[in-house]
């Protein structure tokens, strides 16, 4: 048995013994624990589960132990994730700090920043928001205008950020800010950590087509930010952001396999909502759409496995660069397919006329529209493939 295999046995056993039964069910948004000063545990079992995982070092298994992580390898971390998925264990702690900022700090942060923030994330003390996009800077992120002026011992920040997830519940926000307006747009950007309690910060929630308002616009009005909150070098924030974007796209590509919601599988929905004759779906169009979807997902899953195997074998390929595009487009296709399969049962907005699962399906359909926009739209992904993989000449417009 290889080391990884015996590690897997160990993980499997530990999870079996320590993950409460109630934490092995599909999770609804209300049952998620996001940490932070304003956060609370949705249930006693959720608290027990989180604390056991934290004590074991598996909230952030591949972060160094000195910052509260598990000190494990990337492969070991993946084994933990796989084993958790196997028993449908819930994610004990959600958060952008855990998924995104941690990576940036580990790579670019100062020792003081790592000490101050990493353990606080793992301990659920701070919840982070991400301040990248602006009303005038979406796909063209590098044109961002939120200013941070050097005032000697601090930066003075003015401007606004949009799509800041749950900023009204967050303690800190990491932002891309303009520190030099006189150079090429990518070369005048810095990466700043800002305490949301600082005077001059305000947030407004944004209502979405899904009926939710998980995102906010966040305004900065003469906010004073200490110099030590700069991550990496001054005017080198774009490099940090690019590294994080790659990480974010990987996360989004994997979202399908780790959705926080109760997701109906299209095959189950077909058996529940469609007419069958002799083991076959009668509606030939839906049968054809369903098989297209299943084949595409089968191919995407195999390509995920291939990227892991290539990484382990030290082989480079274009596969990782196409996964965000393929994964999010497939999620959208799935939502449309579910609606088509469920007919008018898939159109319920609220109330007792529909099951919770049906209502969730429609909300997820609306939410799925954001997946091919956030984290670099599908069009931007195709630009990236054209440039980095195919090395096609840059178009005049970009």
């Amino acid at each position, binding site marked *: 048995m290889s080391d990884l295999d015996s590690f897997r046995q160990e993980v499997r056993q530990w999870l079996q013994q320590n993950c409460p039964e109630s934490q092995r069910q599909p999770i609804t948004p209300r049952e998620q624990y996001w940490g932070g000063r304003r956060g609370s545990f949705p249930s006693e079992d959720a608290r027990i589960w989180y604390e056991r995982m934290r004590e074991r070092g598996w909230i952030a298994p591949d972060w160094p132990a000195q910052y509260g992580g598990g000190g494990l390898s990337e492969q070991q971390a993946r084994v933990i994730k796989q084993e958790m998925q196997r028993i449908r264990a819930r994610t004990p702690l959600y958060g952008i700090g855990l998924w995104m900022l941690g990576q940036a700090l580990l790579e670019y942060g100062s020792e003081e920043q790592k000490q101050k923030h990493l353990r606080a994330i793992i301990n659920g003390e701070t919840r982070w928001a991400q301040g990248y996009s602006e009303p005038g800077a979406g796909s063209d992120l590098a044109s961002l205008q939120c200013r941070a002026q050097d005032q000697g011992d601090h930066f003075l920040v003015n401007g606004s950020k949009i799509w800041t997830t749950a900023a009204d519940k967050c303690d800190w926000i990491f932002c891309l800010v303009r520190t030099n307006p006189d150079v090429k747009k990518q070369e005048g950007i810095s990466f700043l950590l800002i305490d949301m309690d600082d005077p001059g910060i305000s947030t407004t929630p944004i209502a979405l087509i899904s009926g939710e308002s998980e995102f906010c616009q966040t305004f900065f009005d003469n906010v004073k930010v200490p110099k030590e909150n700069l991550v990496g070098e001054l005017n080198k924030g774009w490099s940090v952001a690019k590294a994080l974007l790659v990480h974010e796209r990987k996360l989004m590509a994997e979202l399908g396999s780790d959705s926080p919601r109760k997701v109906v599988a299209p095959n189950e929905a077909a058996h529940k909502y469609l007419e069958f004759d002799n*083991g076959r779906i009668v509606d030939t169009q839906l049968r054809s759409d369903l098989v297209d979807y299943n*084949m595409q997902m089968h191919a995407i899953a195999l*390509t995920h*496995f291939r990227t892991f195997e290539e990484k382990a074998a030290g082989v480079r390929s274009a596969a990782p660069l196409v996964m965000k595009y393929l994964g999010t487009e497939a999620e959208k296709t799935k939502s449309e397919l579910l609606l088509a399969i469920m007919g008018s049962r898939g159109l319920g907005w609220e109330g007792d006329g529909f099951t919770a699962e049906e209502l969730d399906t429609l909300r997820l359909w609306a939410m799925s529209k954001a997946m091919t926009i956030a984290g670099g739209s599908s069009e931007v992904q195709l630009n990236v493939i054209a440039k980095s993989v195919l090395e096609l000449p840059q*178009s005049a417009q970009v």
Partner: protein
Amino acid sequence: MPLVLNEEQRLLRDTARDFLASNAPVAALRKLRDTRDPLGYDPQLWRKMAELGWASIILPEAYGGLDFGFLGLGAVLEECGRTLAASPLLASAVVGASALLLGGSGEQKAALLARVAAGELTLALALEESHHHRPSHIATTAVADGTGFVINGSKTFVLDGHSADQLVVVARSSGEERSTQGLTLLLVDRASAGLSCQRTVMADSRNAANLRFDQVRVGADRLIGEPGQGWAVLEPVLDRGRVALAAEMMGCALEAFERTVAYLKQREQFGVPIGSFQALQHRAAQMQAAIELCRSVLLQALSAVDETPEQLPMLASLAKAKLNELVKLVTNEAVQMHGGIGVTDDLEIGFFLKRARVAMQVFGDTGFHKDRYATLCGY
């Protein structure tokens, strides 16, 4: 299952690429076409391929084979797809040999496989009876007569049917006309009395034939497997053929795609390379994404032949359907993106377009495999 080629397989692929570039470029196929070559492939090339061991890649060492498995075979066939090399590799060394390997008696294997492996003897599968792939719709009859069988019927779209030394004929000895029950596989010598052959000139300039069996008599020793039980052999043989063909199609798609991307960088209009236009960049990027998916599917399906045959039906249909869609997309886009020269016979892109269309029909079109996959999924 391995989704990355090992050192040995990469070496095989690189050797194949070098060999085919100098021995069987697309120009060789053009020459076969223009001279209306009676054989349809170059026997000297086939002999050299056999010397390299290609005719025996999937065969066990006991029959003179290399035993490199389907991942090794796929690496070679993909390179053959890149240059559209015409040879009996698929029809004889993969499909024909698999029929003997999976269904043949000890005597048949001993007598024939080593010769197939050496490239001395070629085989072809005589299956189709209509213009669509319907492997169980067999009207050709095999009636037991004395110690052997008498075959009557017609076959079409028989790959390498005009040149193969021996034919593996799918005939019906019992059962309804569309049933998978009652099929019998028989080996028939091409020189048999009552067997007539019409070579069909196809779009891809490769080789296929219509065959007619009129009271063709074969001995009992020519039976492959059990009488009436042919489906149990035929289905895995077809799946092996589908996966192998998918590898060839991958090479065909990659070559057409790479030539097109190179052209996008070189061709200038409005004072800039046309590859700088986003309308073309996005379509090229979408093809790259489709190629990545097909690469994973193909490797998994090739691995399944040797490692997880129980998964082969689903993976073979996934691979053939996905590769059908890929070669259709890529060859159409290749012509369109080359503009006016794309529709000239001078440019080799047209050869890829035509080969793609034939390959898409061989062993099942997209609809056939989507239907099979859906059925295997339980809907």
